[in-house]
Structure formats: C-alpha cells, structure tokens
C-alpha cells in the first residue's frame, strides 16, 4: 500500500478542520451541561443556523463573511438567550431526560422550518476573498481557508479556556457548577449567569457553523449528523475538563482523517468504535471523573 505524503497531509489537515468543529461544539456542550444540567441536543441545529444565517445575509443583503463571523454568533446567542428564558427555564427541576427531549424538539422545529424554506439540497457558498487561494509549502499545497479554520478555532477554544479557568467570571461559573445555591447566597445573580452561559455556548456553535460553511455543504440537515458524533466525542472525553474536551475533539478529528486514507470504509464509524473501546477500558471517559 503506497500513500503519497501530500495526500496524507491534506487528510491530516481536513481531520484537524473537523476536529476543530468537534472541539468547539463539545466545549459548548460541556459548559452548558455543567451549569444547566441540560444536554443541548439543539447544538447541531444552532451550528447549522449559524451557517444558514451567514448564507442568508450574503445572498439577500450582501453582507460579507467577516461581518457575519461576528454577527451570526451574536444573533444565535440572542436566540439562545430567548430559548433559555422562555423554554429551558421551566424544566431545570425535572429529570435530565426532559432537557434532552425539549432540545430535541427544538432541533426538529428549527430544522423543519428551514427545510420547508430551503429543502434538503446544499446551498452554494463561496470561500471568502483573501482566503480562497492556496499556499504551496513545498511538501504540500495548503488551502488557506482550512488553515484559517484551524487557527481561528484554536484561538476561540483557548480564549474560552482562559475565560473559564483564569478570570473572575470563570471562577463564578465554576463555583456555580459546583454549588449554585451557595454562589447565589454570596449575591451572584445565578439565573442571569445561566442564561448568559447558554447564550454563550450556542454562540460558540454558531461560530463553528460560520467557519464550517465554506468547507461543509450548507443544508438544514448539516447539524444532525455532526451532533451525534460530538455526543460520542463527549462520551469519550468526559465533560469534566475544558482542555480535555479540546484535545479529545482535535485528536478524534485527526484519527478520522487518517482513517479516510488507510481504510475509508470505516471513516464514518471510527469515532464510535473508539467510544466503545474507551467505554470498555475507562468507563468514565478519558478526562472524566465518575460522580
């Protein structure tokens, strides 16, 4: 079996691109779950919503990509705040499963609405201006946009890590995850914090959606397969650690990329196979703590 070096490297890069999306999405899921105790099934749909919003803005209002890279997460974040205030708020005292079911319903609703407008076929989307070329590095040709996705995702991931682990706001957040009632007794507005956390988490998903739009075909269904893989990533990594989520996401993306080179038939299942292995060897997940 002979595999050319450039092909290997380009799959590695594509793996890193996918891994970046896994990292951002699983990070958002973990932050939301930590404070809200809700597994946000709608994460994939809101990722898709970010991408579709960008497409809409470009096609109907000729707004450019860079504006949308900021605007789409903001709009989806506000949408998330509304979801939390109007819907999620009512179910915190119930069993975990209702959170999953409610957000599943939201997913079907969002996807259904966009499907009735755009159908299921992909929408065309151009790579933004300064990044649509490629750089020849000598040993491989590097598509600039893919490199940008990886860099931008990493910056956002580590900024989030810094925000949560190293700042005062982050300290409140972590304390709220541990013991919300005690934090509230210290005069912190915990309900507001919960609302903003959900908004922030889904804004991250929308950011990934805008990044993904030129790489993955945009369609109302683009989020639903991704979210299931991200669930597997979360099971593998465990939701205990932010850095763990980032590393697991990137690592699994790369493994998936290599599988595409060496054994393409398994590329869509490899993450699930790894999940099975991890469950057998370390049931709590790589970075997880058993509660």
């Amino acid at each position, binding site marked *: 079996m002979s595999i050319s070096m450039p092909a290997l490297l380009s799959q590695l890069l594509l793996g890193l691109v996918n891994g970046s999306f896994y990292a951002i999405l699983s990070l958002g899921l973990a932050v939301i*779950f930590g404070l809200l105790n809700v*597994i946000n099934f709608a994460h994939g749909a809101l990722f898709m919503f970010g991408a579709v919003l960008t497409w809409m803005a470009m096609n109907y209002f000729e707004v450019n990509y860079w504006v949308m890279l900021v605007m789409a997460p903001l709009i989806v974040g506000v949408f998330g705040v509304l979801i939390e205030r109007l*819907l999620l708020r*009512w*179910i915190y005292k*119930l069993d*975990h*499963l*209702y959170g*999953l*079911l*409610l957000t*599943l*319903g*939201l*997913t*079907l*609703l*969002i*996807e*259904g*609405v966009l*499907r*009735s407008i755009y159908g299921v076929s992909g929408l065309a989307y151009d790579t933004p201006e300064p990044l649509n070329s490629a750089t020849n590095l000598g040993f491989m040709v590097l598509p600039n946009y893919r490199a940008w996705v990886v860099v931008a995702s990493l910056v956002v991931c580590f900024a989030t890590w810094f925000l949560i682990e190293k700042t005062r706001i982050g300290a409140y957040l972590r304390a709220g995850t541990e013991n919300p009632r005690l934090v509230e007794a210290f005069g912190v507005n915990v309900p507001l914090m919960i609302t903003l956390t959900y908004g922030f988490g889904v804004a991250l998903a929308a950011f990934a959606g805008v990044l993904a739009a030129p790489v993955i075909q945009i369609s109302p269904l683009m989020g*639903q*397969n991704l979210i*299931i*893989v991200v*669930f*597997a990533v*979360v*099971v593998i990594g465990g939701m205990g650690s932010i850095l763990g989520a980032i590393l697991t996401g990137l690592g699994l993306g790369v493994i998936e990329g290599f599988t595409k080179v060496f054994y393409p*038939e398994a590329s*869509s*299942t490899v*993450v*699930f*196979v790894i*999940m*099975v292995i991890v*469950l*057998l060897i370390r*049931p*709590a997940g790589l970075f997880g703590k058993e*509660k």
Partner: protein
Amino acid sequence: MNNNRLAIPLYLLLLIALVAAPFAGAYPVFVMKLLCFALFACAFNLLLGFTGLLSFGHAAFLGGSAYVAGHAMKIWGLTPELGLLLGTATGALLGWLFGVLAIRRQGIYFAMITLALAQMVFFIALQAKFTGGEDGLQAVPRGKLFGVVDLGNDLTMYYVTLAIVVAAFLLIMRTIHSPFGQVLKGIKENEPRALSLGYDVSRFKLLAFVISAALSGLAGSLKTLVLGFATLTDVHWSSSGSVILMTLLGGLGTLSGPIVGAAIVVALENKIGELGHLLARITTVDWFNTLGESVTMVTGLIFVICVLAFRRGVMGEVIAFVDRRRTRRG
C-alpha cells in the same frame, strides 16, 4: 391497580374494534403498520417508563432486525415464523451489546451512548451489501406461515399480525406486574435504595434492555413482513426520536399510553398533508398547504409542548382524571 375494573373492559373493547376493523372499512395494511409501531412503542416504554432508562438507540433494533428478517425471508427463503424469530433474536443480541456498553455510564450519558451506537449501526446498514444501501431491501415475500397458511392475503396477514402484537402486549403486561417488573420500578424510583437492598441493579437493567430490544426487533421484522421492505428510514435516529415521542405523547409509564401515542404519531405522519389542506381551506392561509412536507416541524412542536405542559401524556391525564373523580366520590 384499582383501575382494572375500568381498564379490562376498555382493552376488550379495543380488541373487538381491532378484530372488526377490516370489515368496518379500515385499510388493513395501514392498521398493521400502526400495530407494529404500537408494539415498538410499548417495548420502548418498558425501558423508559418502567425502568427509567432513556435509550436513544431503539432505531437500531427496529431497523437492524427488519434487515435481518427481510434478508432471511428473501434471500435464504426462510418461512415467515423463522424470519420473525431471527429478527427478534437479532434485536435481543444488539440489545445485549448496547446494554453491556451503555449501562457502564449513568444518566444522560446512557442516552448519548445508545444514540452513538445506533448511528454506528446506521452507517453499517448504509455501507453493507446485504442491506441494499440507499435502496433498502425491496420485495420481501410474505411466504407461507409454517409452510401452510398463505400470508399473501391481506386479511390473513392482518389477523396473524394482530395475534402476534396482542401476545407481545400480554407478555409486556405480565413482565410489568411480575416481581421482576416491581424491581425495575424500584430501580426507577430510587436506584441507590434498590442497590442497598441487595439487588444487582446492572443485571436487572441489562435484562430489561434486552427484553425491550428483542420486542422492538419483533416489531421491526413484523413490519418488514407486512410491508415487504426494509429501508434506511427504520435505522435512522429519527425513528428513535419518533418512538420517544409516541411514548411521551401517549403517557410515560402507562401501559396503554404508547398504543395511543403510536396511533396519533403514525396517523399524523400519514395524514398531515390532508390536515394541512383542510386547515388551508378553513383559515384561507396558503402556507398550510405545505404542511405535508413539514412533518418534522410539527413533531418538533409536539415534543416541545409535551415536555413543557403535557408530561403525563394522553393516557396519563385520563388515568389522573379517573383517579381524581374516584377520590372525590369515595
């Protein structure tokens, strides 16, 4: 179980209605499809409603068994009863595999693991040769039951289906009321307590999971036998979502709820287009005409409403209503 005095006559009434349905002008194939989904939902409820485990992977048992049973009857030429048995066994085997892995984690992880495993089965079904990929298995023959009874006739097939579904329902009922079922309920109410009483909680959960998966497998293979095909739709995660909706809408943890829920959801999926046209004519809003293409939107909306305001489901509300009246009178 004080509801028995009311419940038994109602079940009998339902049974009589089902026996008479083909003569009252109901389309047998539609009712059979409905029965298969009712069985599927009841099997699912055994797990969610009576054991408190949310499986998000039941599509794999329905769809996986549908393929195996279809393949056995079409390519190997097995008789229908063997096909159904093989399908049920497939469900049980898959259920055992899923269960062993998923029970290692608690709560919300359980749902995510079963969902991920089912997605794996979906991709295998998409790529494997024997499932026919995107086309699915077409033209599965109904054959002759025990080599004697010709199932080609819709009416014969109808009564065989009805008999199987009723038998399976009785089995579920028996399971729930057995000591085993009481332990499951105990686990659902308070798992640490059940553990401290000396019950091997993991083994009970696993057994419940396998039973539920096996019966889902029976529903899937029966569906293939009735309709003559098995497709990717059955293994897709949306099937897992719709069985959750059926159970939730009908009433979690009630015996009859899933039947009602399955009837509503299947009827909705089949008739939503007509409903849309009707609404369009009444309200003169043109948009309703496109409702037929937006089934997901409507199911999503029902999900949200159920979770927020209607958690007892249809039968849960009915039972609560009957109970309230009884306490007021007595």
